């Protein structure tokens, strides 16, 4: 059944149901014309509809025992279980390192290149499904182009003796799940890991790859770093879905419900922001040691935190909240933005976050200073502009003078206040800065434009009476240059803007 054919059937099926029972078959016959197959399909469905009885009418009833006794799902393709020393194509198995819903993961040696790889056996059912195999190849190829230290590099997709094998970088470390199970993480460690994961996401998203199943099991923490694994194949996986189900449902619903964004859960369009949502859940879980939607009878283990760590934890929590918004448009919009937010927090953990790569964040902090300076300076000079505007009002006189002064004052006050707000946010709530900027940007832009226009008009009005027109024109040009040229470049330097100079 193709979706096109199905929607044809749906059309006549629904059409027939809107008609009185007696007219249906005549209507159907005229509607389907010469398409006998369509007529038959619709008639069958209608017959089934008329004899539905109580079928599926009431929600499922479950025996509590069945629900309570359900165990961890998923069997593994037994023919793809190898032991130390086994040769699989060009690979020699060293040992089994993991076992997931999809298959077994081995540490193996690639005998051609003499390097160790993580070898994942993928369901053999894939080899027989042309569409899925093509998609897998496409995604693996895209994933192989991601180069970032926080993403496990995909080496190759191979087919050996009917088994599909994915070879990727071997990472010696525990999963984030295992680390979290050992108790709450240090705030500084959480920050460092979050930053690296965000950087990995940024690299992947820029390569056009969305992970779709980001979760603690897919993050490895080797010493001094964090690595995201399973880029390009995560869409195959999803605990609880059987191997068969997973594969056939791959397009419709994949992922781990606990980390799935609402749109993914609803089977709607998935994009980079779906990963941002999962990242938010991850981050919240790292901070508190438990999933944000979970309950447990035991009280959470509270970790003693220094005051600075308490502040940093609060800021990270805010970032997580911004990522976990229900509507994609309300979330942090890109991993690039996310990295900027997390880097902006480095100052809050001064001297206590040794794992955060310092060089990049120090440079960012210095540039952030210039951006903040620009905001503050612009706010002050907008205030100062009211003096010449007041003088010009006297010169112009009457209604026009008043109008000019009011327009200028309004624009200047709005622009100055919003800038002070950003300045304050940057200094006191760095986690909210990207957010605050996005919200106030259109208003600042509008106020700036109004101010320049009103200054130019004022210059025109006052030109006959005094030399003040020169002053007003110079101020207008200055303000325009400041917001068209200087501000974007300070924002870029501070890592707040995605746009590169063209």
């Amino acid at each position, binding site marked *: 059944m193709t979706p096109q054919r199905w929607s044809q059937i749906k059309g006549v099926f629904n059409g027939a149901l809107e008609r009185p029972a007696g007219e249906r078959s005549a209507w159907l016959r005229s509607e389907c014309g010469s398409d006998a197959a369509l007529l038959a399909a619709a008639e069958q469905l209608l017959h089934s509809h008329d004899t539905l009885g109580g079928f*599926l009418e009431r*929600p499922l009833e*479950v025996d509590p025992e069945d629900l309570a006794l359900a165990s961890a799902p998923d069997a593994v393709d037994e023919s793809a279980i190898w032991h130390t020393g086994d040769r699989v194509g060009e690979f020699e198995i060293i040992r089994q390192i993991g076992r997931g819903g999809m298959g077994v993961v081995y540490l193996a040696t690639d005998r051609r290149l003499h390097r160790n790889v993580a070898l994942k056996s993928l369901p053999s059912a894939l080899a027989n499904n042309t569409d899925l195999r093509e998609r897998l190849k496409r995604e693996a190829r895209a994933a192989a182009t991601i180069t970032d230290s926080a993403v496990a590099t995909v080496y190759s997709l191979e087919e050996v003796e009917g088994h599909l094998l994915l070879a990727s970088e071997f990472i010696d470390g525990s999963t984030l799940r295992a680390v979290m199970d050992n108790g709450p993480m240090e705030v500084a460690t959480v920050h460092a890991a979050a930053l690296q994961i965000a950087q990995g996401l940024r690299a992947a998203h820029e390569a056009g790859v969305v992970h779709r199943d980001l979760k603690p099991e897919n993050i490895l923490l080797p010493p001094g770093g964090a690595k995201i694994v399973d880029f390009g194949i995560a869409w195959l996986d999803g605990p609880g879905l059987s191997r068969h189900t997973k594969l056939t449902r791959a397009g419709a619903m994949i992922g781990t419900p606990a980390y799935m964004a609402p749109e993914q859960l609803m089977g709607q369009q998935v994009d980079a922001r779906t990963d941002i949502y999962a990242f938010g859940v991850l981050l919240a879980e790292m901070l508190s040691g438990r999933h944000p*939607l979970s309950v447990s009878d035991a009280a959470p283990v509270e970790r003693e935190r220094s005051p600075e760590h308490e502040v940093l934890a609060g800021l990270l929590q805010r970032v997580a909240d911004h990522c976990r918004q229900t509507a994609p448009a309300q979330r942090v919009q890109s991993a690039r933005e996310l990295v900027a937010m997390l880097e902006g927090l480095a100052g809050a953990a001064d001297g206590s976050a040794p794992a955060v790569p310092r060089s990049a964040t120090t440079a960012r902090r210095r540039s952030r200073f210039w951006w903040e300076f620009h905001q503050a300076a612009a706010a002050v000079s907008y205030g100062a502009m009211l003096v010449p505007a007041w003088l010009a009002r006297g010169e112009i006189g009457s209604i026009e003078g008043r109008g000019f002064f009011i327009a200028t004052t309004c624009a200047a006050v709005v622009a100055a206040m919003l800038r002070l707000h950003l300045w304050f946010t940057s200094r006191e709530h760095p986690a909210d800065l990207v957010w605050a900027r996005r919200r106030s940007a259109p208003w600042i832009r509008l106020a700036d434009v109004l101010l320049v226009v009103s200054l130019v008009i004022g210059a025109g009005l006052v030109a006959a009476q005094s030399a003040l027109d020169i002053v007003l024109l110079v101020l207008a040009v200055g303000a325009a240059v400041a917001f068209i040229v200087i501000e974007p470049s300070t924002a870029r330097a501070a890592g707040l803007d995605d746009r590169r100079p063209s």
Partner: protein
Amino acid sequence: MPLVYDELRRIAARYMGRERPGQTLDATGLVNEAFVRLAAERTREFENRTHFLAIAALSMRQILVQRARAKRAVKRDAGGHQVTLNDVSAPPSAVRAGFGRADPDRPGDVDVLGLDAALTRLAAFDPEQAQIVELRYFGGLTVEETAEAVGVSPATVKRQWAMARAWLKQALEGA
């Protein structure tokens, strides 16, 4: 998979100790109880109730399909034969109603594995209908709740629901 999944199982475990054997729980009650219990602890997290219900519906489907499979495997290992829909030789008592085989005496019962497979097929050409069935049947959502979760009007849900049921019935009967 923590949380909703675990909560559903925890509630079921409590009922197991309390209810008469053989008594069943309906999906609506279960899912709503899970919601109320989880929401009581973490009020702020559940502003979006439909998001939660969708998770719960998916979890129910996963749990029950997995459980049905496990039961079938146990039966097979024990020397029994694989129970299918068309297998009329299996005595009705061989499998609990609702798992592995529909009980003809209880018209509301449906073979979970068969339904799961049919739903998977349906999802391939009409993901929205499959989603609606999952929410309505496995999650026990009302038409209005389903409409909100899927983002369509209640009238559309009703239309899609009727057609999906008709198709699934046909598919399960092997027509």
